């Protein structure tokens, strides 16, 4: 434990970062990593925007894993922190869905936003960045839960905030109903009819005696690969 005066990453530049002032709406100095990305992945980078001083690089969603791996590993970039994975759906139904990755390089004190565009109507699939950042685990699960985007290569893509058996869709999509589809009495009926074994996931039910204590019929269904949930 040391209360040292501050030191950042090993390759921190000498100058102290300052609170941004007078940031223009559009334009301004882009993050140097954007140019490096364009040089390294000319096919994948579709657009570079600077909005309110933050650099956004729109990349081909299918190649995002390679892009992110390079950003993480390259000694000139060192984006070691994946701050956030999320998605944006616009009110205009024609506009594509955007998957957003927020990356931070602590060594160079840079912030970079990656975006992948997913056309509506086509399957919503992007590669998972979990092999590089373990923090993507829950963030991608939440994004899947809320938007229905499938992250290929994620080891355990389940719902996280909603429960596993939730069948009403994905809450943050614009077509999600705001008032619910069922009456209160129907909701109550469904809750009471829920399967008790739905409290545990398949994985958990395999532990120790929990599995053998279940009714035979339930065991058969679980062994047949059925997922739990009401």
């Amino acid at each position, binding site marked *: *434990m040391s209360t040292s005066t501050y030191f950042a990453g090993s390759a921190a530049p000498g100058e102290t970062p300052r609170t941004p002032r007078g940031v223009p709406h*559009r334009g301004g100095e882009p993050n140097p990593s954007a140019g490096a990305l364009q040089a390294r992945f000319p096919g994948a980078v579709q657009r570079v925007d600077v909005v*309110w001083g933050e650099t956004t690089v729109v990349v081909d969603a299918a190649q995002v894993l390679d892009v992110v791996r390079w950003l993480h590993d390259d000694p000139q970039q060192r984006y070691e922190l994946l*701050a*956030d994975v999320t998605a944006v759906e616009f009110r205009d139904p024609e506009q594509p869905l955007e998957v957003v990755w*927020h990356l931070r390089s602590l060594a160079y004190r840079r912030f970079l936003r990656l975006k992948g565009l997913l056309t509506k109507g086509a399957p919503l699939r992007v590669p998972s960045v979990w092999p590089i950042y*373990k923090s993507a685990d829950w*963030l991608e699960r939440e994004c899947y839960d809320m938007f229905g985007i499938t992250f290929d290569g994620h080891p355990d893509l389940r719902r996280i905030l909603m429960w596993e058996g939730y069948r009403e869709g994905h*809450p943050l999509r614009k077509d999600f109903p*705001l008032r619910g589809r069922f009456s209160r009495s129907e909701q109550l009926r469904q809750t009471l009819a829920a399967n008790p074994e739905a409290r545990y996931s398949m994985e958990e039910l395999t532990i120790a005696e929990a599995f053998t204590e279940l009714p035979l019929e339930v065991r058969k269904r679980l062994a047949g690969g059925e997922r739990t949930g009401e």
Partner: protein
Amino acid sequence: MATTKRTVEVAVATAGMGPDGRLQRTPLGMGADGTLVAPEVEHGYPPELGGEHMLINIGPQHPATHGVLRLVLELDGETVVRCIPHVGYLHCGFEKIGEYRQYNQIIPWTDREDYLNSPGNNCAFALGAERLFGIEITPRCTVLRVIAMELSRIMSHLVWMGTTGIDIGAFTPFLWLFQERERIYDLFEQWIGARLTTSLTRVGGMGADLPAGWTNMLEEFIRTFPKTLDEADRMLTKNAIWVGRTVGIGALTAEEAMNHGLTGPMVRASGVAYDVRKDFPYLDYETYDFDVPVGTRGDVYDRYLVRLEEMRQSVRILKQALERLPEGPVNVADPRVILPPKHKATSEMESMIHHFKVVMEGPRPPVGEAYVAVESPKGEKGYYMVSDGTSKPVRWRIRPPAFVNLSAIPKMVEGHLLSDVIAINASIDIVMGEIDR
């Protein structure tokens, strides 16, 4: 048989003196002939308790899970083999609600996610919205927000320290620390009228300026608070039980912590000096003189030390903020977002129309997006807002630090004892309102 990270010392066989010159205590069992004999155990390993694994469910209704967290644990004896966390019991769809609210109407919702840090969330949201509107706040407002954010950091850390103490078995510091927290709540009550759900800020300014005499109350708090902190420090830092329960527990290396996306005191305890206030400053934090405490072991004990020191550093910042607090307007002179004075709105037609339009239609930021992160007591709290030019955001995303910190809990608890799960879970400083949103 899983290996335990803490070896359970079992003293064996020969009665008499140990190497330290004291009488050795020998655990005894019953032999076949009815005599008491020492059990045959290999030194340094816990006795084999059979290969059966057990499924243990903790929560969601459990006092040590700090809300409605549920952990499903697979145990081998007392050792955790696997931990499967479940969240979402408190999900209320804050982000969805935000898409149907004007920017100023979202501020009360930020009170309710991380409810131990309401003023800090208010300031963070206002900063994000101001970036989206392209507004520069006044110098007085900047310093007022620093005061609010540091007070709320102390407030949140006090709750953390008190409740973690209770989880590990120390009750007294809880009472002392909550008395101090009560004084901060009194300060906020004087300032804005609310204690827990403060809604302190507005886009472009604050809900209220400081009342007369408030700075004297804050000075009094700054003068007396470190004494209580020192008392709690003396109660815990060298306490044998506290040290025994926390040192070496739930340790993460700097690389692991970074890779799991940990931020705030969690990552700093592992030795990474990442503090948003220093690395990506806001509210002129680069002009304040304060240090960032950094741990070395990355265990529960270091997380405690880091948070303890952070409170002292917050007091330092508060002192400097009070010294430099400038006079002047609190709200920006921008009629797009700021209401006209009340007496004008009730007496002049133009001001009344202005008031009506700001309230009913709401301010409209230009098309764009902004991600503004601040150093909340839990870590990097980010608000990501996307505007399509209307008065309500298309997307309002909360980057919850405790959510990402909690996702590393299987990594931290596996291999530890069941009782350590409680200590590790406490050390993450979770607030389920923020995790489930």
